[in-house]
């Protein structure tokens, strides 16, 4: 099934399994959501579990928090992750600190359709996961495959903490994979070795993971065996997996779609430079989008984002270091 279908199926199966789970967001009921993820949900679950909300992100996220305080398990859909800036206080101040202040759980999921290559421009394409990774009390996940889209959504819904689930819009229909049936839960905080290798470690997540895999294939034709690590969880990061792969290969290339400066790659690089320093046989290299807003023009966006060629080039350069 597609990445999009995996999200839909995970959401539907959790709503069938647990009556506390419900969805809330703009245009998700009658219309089934801007991307059609909740199509058919209103008929199956009714208007109190599939809530068409007004155009008010702070209220919608806040209402999710309130319902979670009462023991429900809300899944709030942001129509585009970009609009979370209207709900920022609720996310980073109200939700993130709630358990720490009260000792009570806050089982809230925010579905964050994010990322570029959808001709969306600066306000429909952003990758701002680093903001939330810098916010203690939140968890942040970003599946790259249909299987993890399901597995991480199940884990997020069952987690007693606020989880930001970054679902990549370009992957919705681009990825189609076998997805295990039934109880397929991907634990939060566990990275995945997407490709084994020895020459260097390529660390990525989301849409860029697939470009990294393609670049690793290209490098393999030159005899370079790159290991590719899919982070999957961004907060908490899987320190053991990151340090493990770097200790194994001695070199790290970090690739993400978010803009470079102070992105998640900075944290990964810093972690490596501090804790795997003795294993390093080369600089910790980052490849990321340019430090600009996301351009609307496809021509510019292609120049903005890391491309397979560029990643392959960086793999070769680092391998040769």
């Amino acid at each position, binding site marked *: 099934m597609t990445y999009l279908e995996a999200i839909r199926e995970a959401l539907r199966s959790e709503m069938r399994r647990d009556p506390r789970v419900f969805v809330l967001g703009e245009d998700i009921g009658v219309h089934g959501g801007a991307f059609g993820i909740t199509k058919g949900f209103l008929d199956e679950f009714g208007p109190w579990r599939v809530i068409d909300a007004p155009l008010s992100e702070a209220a919608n996220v806040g*209402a999710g928090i*309130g319902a979670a305080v009462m023991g429900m398990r809300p899944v709030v859909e942001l129509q585009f992750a970009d609009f979370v800036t209207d709900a920022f206080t609720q996310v980073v101040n109200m939700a993130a600190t709630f358990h720490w202040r*009260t000792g009570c759980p806050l089982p809230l999921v925010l579905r964050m359709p994010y990322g570029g290559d959808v001709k969306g421009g600066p306000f429909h394409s952003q990758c701002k996961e680093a903001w939330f990774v810098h916010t203690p009390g939140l968890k942040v996940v970003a599946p790259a495959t249909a299987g993890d889209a399901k597995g991480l959504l199940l884990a997020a819904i069952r987690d007693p903490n606020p989880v930001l689930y970054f679902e990549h819009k370009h992957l919705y229909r681009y990825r189609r994979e076998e997805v295990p049936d039934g109880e397929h839960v991907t634990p939060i905080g566990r990275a995945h070795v997407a490709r084994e290798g020895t020459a260097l470690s390529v660390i990525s997540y989301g849409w860029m993971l697939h470009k990294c895999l393609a670049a690793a294939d290209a490098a393999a034709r030159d005899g370079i065996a790159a290991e590719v690590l899919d982070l999957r969880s961004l907060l908490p990061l899987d320190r053991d997996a990151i340090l493990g792969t770097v200790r194994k290969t001695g070199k790290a290339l970090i690739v993400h779609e978010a803009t470079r400066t102070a992105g998640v790659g900075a944290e990964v690089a810093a972690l490596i430079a501090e804790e795997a320093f003795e294993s390093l046989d080369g600089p910790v290299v980052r490849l990321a989008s340019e430090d600009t807003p996301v351009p609307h023009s496809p021509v510019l966006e292609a120049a903005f984002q890391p491309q397979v060629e560029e990643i392959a080039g960086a793999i070769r350069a680092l391998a040769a270091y």
Partner: protein
Amino acid sequence: MSTIEATSRAGDALTPGELLEMLYYMRLQRAIEDRAIKLYYQGRIPGAYFTGWGHEAIAVGATYALGPADLLAPMHRDLAAYLMRGIPARRVFAQFLDREGGLTRGRDGNIHMGDPRLGILPFISHMAASVPVAAGMALACRQRGQARVVLTFFGDGATSTGAWHEGVNFAAVLRLPVVLVLENNQYAYSTPLDRQTAARALVDKAPGYGIPGVAVDGNDVLAVYAAARAAVARARDGGGPTLIECRTMRMRGHSEADHFAYVPRELLAAWAARDPIALFERRLREEGQLTAEADRAMQGRIAQEVEEALAWAEASPEPAPASVAEGVYAASDGR
């Protein structure tokens, strides 16, 4: 236009015991805050200290209208509401002193406290941030078919925030069982009401959300109670939210560090003559419900409770520095 001025008195519906209980909580808030102000000036309360001096009739009158299973999302001048819904005075003092026995165990300070287990949402600094959350609490009740009501307090300044607007609108559109109590104390920190809004009255905002609005004398505990009782009943019956504008005056600085030179002293004097506790005492005395003996007994009880609570709080340990990194994430949802 749905805005009406509430003038009815609901005192008749309350028993003498209930009336005295209301007075007790108003006095208890004042007594705790009185004591805390002294602690503050002794340098024993870390950080800022906020009181609800002048707001006691609002906190008590509105909260008294709630049923046992109802929920509360208070603000920073409603100490009595916290007490009435089950938070003991000793934990309040421990909170003020940043002790382990405080509601937040030293994590947050002053009146930023609550207890979800008691149905009290803890307040955070961002004004009106509780309003959408209160709507969500009401949503959960509605989803489960529980006839519970959520009462939330906020200030005149808070009505200018986007969070307030979005939260009220959300509750109104979904006809959620929320009671919206506005504590209009004429100022938001140094900002007078006419710099906060150009509306003739804040209650005029209600029709813009399609909800009833009512303005009451916020220094008259029974007027507040009457309006809240009607709003709670309406909410419980599926009638959706009501906005209750309680008009009062902030009788001290924004926090105790604020000398509030920006408030005209005549304004303060005029309101001081209408102190909500004194007004209610006079009425209860005139109606024979507060005898000299009952009065003395209540004052004695309160004084003793305050000192015991403070002693308990002072005996509560400081939080352990080694615990600093703990408690950020819940390990399980406990259900």
